[in-house]
């Protein structure tokens, strides 16, 4: 990974983290269990991406 790719990945991490925070806050307002679960799935996807990217950055 070159410097530019690394910076892009770091920037993406910031966005993903910020989106996770926003989705978690949004999820708290939802009353339907079914819809809560849908949002949780999306949060989990973003969390997976965040951890994968973190591993990539740590291993470089």
């Amino acid at each position, binding site marked *: 990974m*070159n*410097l*530019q790719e690394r*910076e*892009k990945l770091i*920037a*993406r991490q*910031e*966005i*993903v983290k*910020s*989106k996770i925070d*926003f*989705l978690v*806050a*949004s999820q*708290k*307002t*939802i*009353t*339907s269990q079914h*819809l809560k679960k*849908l*949002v949780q799935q*999306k949060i989990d*996807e*973003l969390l997976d991406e965040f951890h994968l990217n973190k591993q990539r950055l740590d291993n470089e």
Partner: protein
Amino acid sequence: MSNKNPQRRPHQAAKKLYEKTKGMSPRQRDQAILAYKNQVGEEEFVKQMLAFADDTQEELQALSKDTIMLKTKWLNESWVNKSDICARLYGKKDKSTVGYFALQRQGQKPWKPGQLEKLDSIRKELMESLKI
């Protein structure tokens, strides 16, 4: 399902709320999100949130551009010999290269692969040479 803004794409509606709540305290943010959810309805709200979660590309591009501009900001400092940097970066400083380099500094032309890394090492060399 209610939708106060049918013409707006779902991810954009959620993005607007996301931007609006960015600087807020957690409590204020939670209240703003709840008010918005009550306004558009729960199903529409979730639809917008899911679309927004999938759409990171637009933001990433804007952020990358800002990051690059920040990284190359030093090139526009008065103490920087732009002509010399151009020669070191391109191996020449003819009219078209100098012109292209000026547009790159202004963010109007993209940097080529490897150029940002090269500029970074040029900057480090310059800073080293300025040390007493």
